[in-house]
């Protein structure tokens, strides 16, 4: 499966191209192979979910794309550029499981942070920032400090921050991993709405099967020891996907297929 062209339309533009990437971490006990010759291409404008058990290297893969780690072998190219060159233009947006907001900054000034790091004038983009705060549903909370916001609201600030530079590549590392199941579903709907308002090539790491199936165009299934891609499963549902989809039999069929790919021994 790994050797197959992992997306449906090989002639379309690839925004992200991961070629034979391996990464080993040296720990005190023994070296751990986090990724073993991983190859993946992500089409422009698509939403790809990475799913797999703990230790399968899905977060490492995302960090390689963000240029936060360097591969031992292989290459990561974003529109034919290195992650470092790509991100220096503000083309990357990122959000983590932990919102990682600066606790002393208001929501608005947290959203502005990437612009400041990139050396852009924040005053000229105030309208953009306010629009984003509205888009993530935080109208009226622009001047609140993170400590005054709930966990879900903080995560919305982090998503607005990830979108502020008009990124052409959005990286989400378990963005709703710390939320409860009910809040997670409503955030999934929100994320779909936000994403459809500004469709951006998106790579999302998750360990939640229905989150992956609901949001993604393609789900990349990974296994651990060593971390590798075992399957790429296309999700056929049209957008916008409604909450009713969570209860649909075809949705459950996809989820079962994902579960089987994640743990083949369980379905035998």
């Amino acid at each position, binding site marked *: 499966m790994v050797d197959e062209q992992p997306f449906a339309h090989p002639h379309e533009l690839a925004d992200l191209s991961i070629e034979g990437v391996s990464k080993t971490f040296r720990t005190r006990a023994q070296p751990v192979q986090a990724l073993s010759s991983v190859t993946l291409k992500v089409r422009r404008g698509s939403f790809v979910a990475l799913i797999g058990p703990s230790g399968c290297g899905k977060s490492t893969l995302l*960090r390689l794309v*963000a*240029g936060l780690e360097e591969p031992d072998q292989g290459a990561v190219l974003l529109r034919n550029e290195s992650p470092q060159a790509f991100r220096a*233009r503000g083309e990357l947006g990122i959000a983590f499981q*932990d919102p*990682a907001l600066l606790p002393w900054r208001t929501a608005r000034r947290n959203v502005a*942070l*990437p612009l400041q*790091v*990139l050396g852009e004038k924040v005053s000229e983009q105030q309208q953009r920032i306010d629009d984003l705060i509205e888009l993530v549903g935080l109208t009226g909370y622009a001047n609140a400090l993170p400590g005054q916001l709930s966990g879900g609201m903080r995560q919305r600030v982090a998503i607005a921050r990830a979108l502020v530079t008009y990124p052409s590549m959005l990286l989400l590392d378990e963005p709703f991993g710390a939320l409860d199941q009910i809040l997670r579903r409503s955030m999934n709907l929100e994320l779909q709405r936000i994403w459809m308002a500004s469709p951006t090539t998106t790579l999302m790491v998750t360990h939640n099967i229905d989150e992956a199936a609901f949001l993604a165009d393609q789900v990349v299934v990974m296994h651990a020891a060593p971390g590798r891609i075992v399957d790429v499963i296309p999700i056929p549902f049209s957008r916008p996907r409604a909450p009713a989809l969570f209860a649909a039999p075809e949705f459950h069929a996809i989820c079962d297929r994902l579960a089987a790919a994640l743990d083949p021994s369980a379905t035998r």
Partner: protein
Amino acid sequence: MTRAQFKTSVYLFAALLVWEVAGRSMHAVRDLIASPTLILTQYWTGADLYVPHLLATVRSAAFGFVIGNLVAVAAAILFCRFPAAETAFRGVNIALFAMPSIVVGPVLALVFSDNLPQIILAALVVYFPTMAATLVGLRDIDPRLLDVIKTYGGGPDAIMRFVRLRSALPAILAGLRTAAPLSVLGAILGEFGSGVRWGLGSFLLGSLGDADPARLLGIGFAATAVAMAGYGVFAWIGRRTLGASMAVTIAPERSPDQYILWPEYSWQSNAALFSVAVLLPFLLWWLILRVSDISPIIAPGPVETLRHLVSGPDSADARAAMLAALGQTLPLAALGLVCGIAAAFAIAALTVVRPAAAKAILPVAMLLQSMPLVALVPLVMLLFGRDTAATVVMAVMVVFFPAYVMLAQGFALVPRPALELVQVYGGSRTSELVLVSVPYAASYLFAAAKLVVPRALLGVMVAEWLLSGKGLGNLLNSSRGLLDYDMVWAGAVISILISVAAYEAVSGVERLAR
């Protein structure tokens, strides 16, 4: 006022009343510890002395505080940004942490004049706590924030600017809080060495001979009040700027190992950096004297000082005097250290069995921890005289309080589920203590020991200098009087080296024990 505060005030008032009545009615008590109103009266009658002495100390402390803290924050930023610089300066940092500050005063007095020795000593004393607190604050940041900044192409400078500096603000303010009372102590110890006319230290020295308990305790309380005021100002600023969320308790001080990281370079560069770390203090010593162009008779360099003890014409006498002094000082310092830590551990452990007692003791201990130790001298002298007992008591007292605060924290941080596990099986408080709390808190023993090892030596030397007239403290004091400059330098260097060695020995044992 809460119920607990009300109760405390009632007890405090009752204690003062007992002290007053006993002091007024019994001669023996009055000659020992005066009485509250006697102390207050002598403030009134002695105001013409107190005001200039107090102002002189506050001025030196304030100048030293500003200079020392500016250097400390700048150094912490440099060390955070360039970890190799920190490794290179490790020797300097540990020397500044471990130096018994009283030995530096006479040396500074040889090289500088007027108020400069006190100011410089105050600056040297505040440097380490602020630098350590700032460095921890700069380093201890949310790693995800680093990822966010890096994702937008930001490098170490952007991380410093957007994340670290602001993140470190509470830590810097906590460092300044610790540093404020220390600057007062530094100024007073500097006055001992420089022998200036004005200052609380000079006032205390001049009053020790009269043995008037009201005056001596009055000076002790005045020094404590100034130190506490400094602490209070920065606690207040901290609360105002950082909001109610910030803890208002006194953060325990840090010893160098709690922040120093050994960067993972190749062993060659590690060895090179290590050599730099060892040599840099001596190089700076030589360089400062070279640049300041002071007569080598007053201010010998490292080589001359070594020669004074090893190969000079009077080296045999110098060695004998030094060894005799060390023979008196070191056993007392060790005794004070062991007794102080043991008492601190026992009382901290007791608080597990009797939590109510802990609530009462901890604030007092935190307060006394930041009391300038010279303020203890009058009380110790009045209660224990001027000899060995007084010296050991001084050492125990300066060791006990910081060790207790550190160990009480260790006991408080024992994970609750571990204690509840014992409770679920019907264990008593005592079995909680024996099975869980003591083994957990034992790891804090090393942290506490590293923190107080240099203090034990300082406590003994202060007592020797002011009270007993023996040992290393006296050797420095008398050499200063005899204009034996080589001995002043040698004594200072030897005591700093011993202090650093003792600190490193505890660290070494800790590494082995792990």
